[in-house]
C-alpha cells in the first residue's frame, strides 16, 4: 500500500511538471490584439478558460490514475 502512495505522489508531481509545461507552451505566447483597449481582458479571459480546461483534464487523469494505483484498496 505504502509503495502505491509513493507512486501516486510521484505521479502527481510528474503531472504538475508536465501540466505546467503545457500551460507555458499554450498560454505563454497567447495574445489577442484586435479588440483595442479591451484586448488584455479578452486575452486574460481566454487564458482563464484554457487554464480551467487544463485543470479539469488534470483532475480527470488523476482520478483514473488513482483508480488504477489503488485498485485493490478502493474496494472498501
Amino acid at each position, binding site marked *: 500500500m505504502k509503495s502505491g502512495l509513493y507512486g*501516486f*505522489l510521484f505521479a502527481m*508531481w510528474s503531472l504538475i511538471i508536465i501540466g505546467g509545461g503545457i500551460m507555458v507552451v499554450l498560454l505563454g505566447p497567447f495574445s489577442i490584439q484586435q479588440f483595442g483597449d479591451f484586448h488584455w481582458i479578452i486575452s*486574460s479571459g481566454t487564458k482563464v478558460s484554457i487554464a480551467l480546461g487544463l485543470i479539469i483534464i488534470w483532475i480527470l487523469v488523476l482520478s483514473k490514475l488513482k483508480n488504477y494505483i*489503488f485498485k485493490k484498496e478502493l474496494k*472498501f
Partner: protein
Amino acid sequence: MIELIIPTIISCILAFFVVYFTIPPLIKILVKKNYTVKDVNKKENVMVARPGGISIILGIIVSEIVLYGFFQLNEILAIIITTTAAFAIGYVDDRKVMGGWFKPVTLAIAALPIIFLGAYNSDFTFPLFGDVQIPLLYLGLIIFMIPITGNTINSIDVLNGVASGFMVIASFTLSICLFILQNYEIAIVSLPLGFVSLAFYKYHKIPSKIFPGDSGALTFGAMYGVIAIIGGVEIIAAIALLPAVINSFLFLSSVKRVVEHRQIKGKPVEFTSDFKLKATTDKTAPVTLVRLILAGGPLTEKQVGFAIFKLTIFSGILAIITAFMMGVSL
C-alpha cells in the same frame, strides 16, 4: 547578507519561544473554562484542551512584527493581516458550528489584503518551462489559494501531532526552496512558520496536550498559502503539500461534493480490540489518506502519523528537486 542574520535569529527565537512558553498557561485556562474535546483515538476518556491557535497566531504576529521592523515589506503586512483573519475565522468555527460555506468564503475574503497591498507577482513560474503572464487568472488564484491551503491543512488534522508535524516538514521545505531560489527576504519571513509549528508540535505530538483546532489549522494553512504567493513559489508549495492534497482529493472524489467532515455518516476508520486503527469496509465512508495507509493492516496512531511524515518528507524532496529545476530552462 550579514545584515539578514540578526533579524533571522531574533524572529526564529521569538517564534519558537512565544509558542513554547504560552501553551502551558493556555492549556490551564482552556481546561479551567472547560474548552476541551474528547480525543476519539484513545481507549480511555481523555479530554484535550482546544484551541491552541491562540498561541500559534501570537508567535506568528510577534515574530513577523519584529521582521517588519527590520524590512518594512508589504509582504510581511500581507502575512500578518491574512493569517490573523484566518485565525479569527477558525476561532469562530471552533466556538460555533458554522455551515460548510463559511470557511471557504471568509478565507477567500481574508486573501484580499494580498491583492490590495500588491504583495504578489502575476508571473507564474513553472520548472523547466519558464514563466507565463496571467494577470487576471492570478488574482483568481490568490483568492482560491488561501481557502485551499487553509482547508487542506485542516483536513489533515486527524491524529495527534499530524497537522503540526506535517507543517514543520512542509514549511521548512518551503523555506529551503526559497533560499535555493535566492529569494532571501521571503525565505527569512517564512522561517517563523516552521519554528511556530515545531514549538506547537512539542505539545501536540502523541499523546496530545492541546489540539490546534480550526483556528490553529487555518492559521498554519493561510500563512503557508501567503508565503507561496508572495514568494512566487506556488508550484513548489503545492508539491510540498502533496500528501495533504491527496487526502483532500481522495475525500472529495469519494464523497463527490464539498462537505464538512462532521456531516459524513460513514466511518473510514475503526479500532481493533487492542486499540489499533483499522480501515473499515463501509462503502458510505470517505476514502482518506489514513484509510489508505491502514489498507495494508492495522497500525497504532503513532505509526500512522509517522507514515504520513515519511510521505511528507518524500514530497519535500520532490519540492526541493523542483526548486533546483526552476533554474533550468529547456
